């Protein structure tokens, strides 16, 4: 690179403008591809955008922290967007009320399945204790997962990364499960993806319909609460039971 270009690059890679613009461009490009493939599940825009950004950061030798200095303006909107979930919840309230009993049972069984199966598969394949405890809360939103994993002996940073991967896996895989298990009801589709794949799953559910989104938001919130309350005693109990 010529000296001027190098100087420009030094300026840009340290400026919040670059991270913010890259994020919006990656999302638009990913969404364009998603639409071009006829909304193919494997062309999930969150997964594609993350892959594009990771490649750009790697090629441009940009530190994640300096990228996030710009991207945080987008990240910040997660707060008000989470509060805004109250509106679809309110709209779907009449249907939610009639399904209250089944939803609670599905919540408890789904949440236990997420935790126990992650532990069982990880333990069978020889994951370390720290990895198992970071895996256990992977289906809930990042701040809860990190807070729950740490006192159990997990690594908060690893827990955060596993939460993100879970969200992407859920968003990509759910459409195949809908078809395979023949689930047409948007309420059921939404509740399952929100429970297993938190916010990223909820974002995917809003692409199905407002009803799917509302049920996903409810499942995400309830599973976050349930996991925060139950994991601190389920995991030690499970380890004692298995004599680990």
């Amino acid at each position, binding site marked *: 690179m010529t000296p001027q270009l190098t100087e420009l690059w030094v300026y840009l890679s340290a400026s919040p403008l670059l991270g913010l613009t890259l994020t919006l461009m990656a999302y638009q490009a990913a969404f364009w591809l998603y639409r071009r493939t006829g909304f193919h599940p494997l062309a999930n825009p969150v997964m594609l955008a993350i892959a594009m950004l990771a490649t750009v950061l790697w090629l441009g030798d940009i530190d994640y922290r300096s990228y996030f200095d710009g991207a945080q303006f987008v990240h910040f909107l997660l707060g008000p967007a989470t509060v805004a979930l109250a509106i679809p919840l309110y709209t779907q309230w009449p249907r939610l009320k009639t399904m209250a009993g089944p939803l609670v049972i599905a919540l408890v069984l789904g949440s236990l399945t997420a935790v126990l199966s992650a532990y069982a598969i*990880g333990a069978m394949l020889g994951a370390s204790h720290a990895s198992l405890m970071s895996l256990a809360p992977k289906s809930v939103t990042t701040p809860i997962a990190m807070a729950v994993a740490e006192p159990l002996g997990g690594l908060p940073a690893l827990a955060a*990364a596993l939460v993100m991967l879970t969200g992407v896996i859920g968003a990509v895989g759910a459409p195949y499960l809908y078809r395979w298990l023949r689930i047409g009801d948007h309420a059921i589709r939404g509740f399952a993806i929100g429970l297993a794949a938190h916010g990223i799953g909820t974002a995917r559910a809003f692409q199905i319909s407002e009803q799917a989104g509302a049920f996903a938001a409810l499942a995400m919130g309830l599973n*976050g609460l349930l996991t925060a309350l139950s994991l601190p005693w389920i995991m030690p109990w499970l380890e004692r039971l298995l004599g680990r």
Partner: protein
Amino acid sequence: MISALTLLLAFQLAGEVIARGLGLQVPGPVIGMALLFGALLLRGGPGEDLRQTADKLLQHLSLLFIPAGTGIVMYGELIAAEWVPLTAALLGSTFLAIGVTMLVLKALSKRPKTGQSIQP
């Protein structure tokens, strides 16, 4: 739009204050959502402005997860060290959790219509 955004941020702020004040593990925005939901029940629904702003935000909810999701690049080594059990556990348990939740809900929400005739 500005008044709706202000309202959303005010509820987030209230949620944040309650979460920190009481030392709760639940994130502030989630409490803010519960508060706003309660307010909507009391008031009988959102105004047009709030509904439209919420629609706009939630339509692009996917975008908002991209900055945090890109953080995976920092943990490549941690994941690479045990990638086989971690990948298998993530794939298996996420699909199982979605499947179990859907099958339970499907089984329970099917109301047997012949229920009364079975009664003695």
